[in-house]
């Protein structure tokens, strides 16, 4: 057995770090689009019409049962065919990051819609009614009164979902995206399969720092936002 080489673990990090941006782009893009889609889903779930609620419930159930790697491949192979057939546009040549973000948006929106819905339901409905009764429009009441309170409630779960997403995002390399993991695999194959363990350990160290960083920043954000909150 080849001896373990701790020095390589440090040496490989400067080669990996430039690709941190790809991973972060995937996460940030997914959080942005996934939150938008999640917002729409949460609204549909809160609507009066049962048929929308069933639709959203079904969607959330299916996403809950689907491994990300399966959805990733379905989107990667299926979406170009689908677009060619229906919209007559060729997206085969699109960058792979596009397919990754589409997949993870679908995956991320389901739990996030539940987070948003429960946060909205956790804020007292009287707050909204009071705001409307003093003359705010429904949108103003939502934006100025309900949203700031719901955000504080949603933050811990939102942070957990982002961490979950970041870990799932490690699979993006399986369709050929060169992110942190993809670069790691390239380095391993450049070394003819040697130093695999060292590279993987460096990668997991980077991921560990990332998840701890996300966790900490969400905690700080929560503190900053809940400062005005007074417990009666």
């Amino acid at each position, binding site marked *: 057995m080849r001896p373990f080489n701790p020095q390589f673990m440090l040496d490989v990090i400067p080669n990996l770090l430039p690709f941190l941006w790809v991973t972060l782009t995937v996460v940030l893009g997914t959080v942005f689009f996934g939150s938008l889609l999640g917002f729409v889903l949460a609204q549909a779930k809160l609507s009066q019409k049962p048929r929308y609620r069933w639709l959203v419930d079904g969607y959330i159930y*299916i996403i809950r049962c689907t*491994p990300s790697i399966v959805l990733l491949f379905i989107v990667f192979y299926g979406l170009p065919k689908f677009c060619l057939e229906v919209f007559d546009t060729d997206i085969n040549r699109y960058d792979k990051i596009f397919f990754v973000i589409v997949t993870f948006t679908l995956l991320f929106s389901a739990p996030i819609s539940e987070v948003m819905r429960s946060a909205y339901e956790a804020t007292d409905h009287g707050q909204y009614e009071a705001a409307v009764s003093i003359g705010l429009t429904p949108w103003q009441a939502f934006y100025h009164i309900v949203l700031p309170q719901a955000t504080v409630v949603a933050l811990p779960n939102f942070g957990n979902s982002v961490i979950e997403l970041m870990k*799932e995002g490690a699979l993006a390399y399986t369709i050929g995206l060169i992110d942190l993991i993809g670069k790691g695999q390239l380095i391993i194959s450049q070394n003819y399969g040697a130093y695999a*363990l060292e590279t*993987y*350990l460096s990668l997991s160290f980077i*991921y560990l720092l990332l998840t701890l960083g996300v966790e900490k920043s969400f905690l700080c954000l929560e503190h900053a936002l809940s400062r005005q909150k007074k417990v009666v």
Partner: protein
Amino acid sequence: MDINYQFLIKTFYLVLTAVPTTLNITAVSLLIAMPLAFYLAVVRMRPGKYIRPLISAYITFVRGTPIFLQILIIYSILPSFLNSTAKYFALEVNVFDWNPIIYAYIVFSLNTTALLCEVFRSALGSINKGQLEAALCAGMTTAQAYRHIIIPQALVVAMPNICNLTVKLIKGTSLAFLMTVKDMTAVAKIAASYGYNYIEAYMDVFVGYIIVCSVVQVLFDFAEKHVGKFRLIKQK
């Protein structure tokens, strides 16, 4: 869209034949992880100087890194490690002939242990300490108190989380193909690679996982009702 329906149906049956492998990995990992996780959770709740930070570090590592990397780390270290150990003790075994499913058991048990430990810890934390004290007062030993008083109550609290964890574990086993285990995903992948019918194959796997997860969730619903039977006041 030109979908090869014949291939779709044929592969679906093929994928179904691999369902036992997926369930096998899930069940064995859960069975190994449960006692370990329970022990760690109990140890973690007791005061202690050296063991607690170690358990915390282990849990942080498992929760902070993708399972994908955990699989690759274990799979790149364990076979050669076992092989050199076997050589060191001059054992006549060839580690590389073993079924790779063993490594899947190890990886997923290690992963599940850490996650289950958190579930058990929160469940045990929800039980009033007075329950344990009352049981000890009534003359039970600590083991009896846990067996008859604490665990039945904690299990009711932990059940929904265990269900979530099991579904996650089933989804996680789709990565077992990295260790050349022939689970549902791997079987479909191999079938698809002959004729580049990837969409059909992955559709089959998609449906397969939904069926498996649904069955498991229904079973957990029954189990939840069963372990909660002693409750006099039904919640909700």
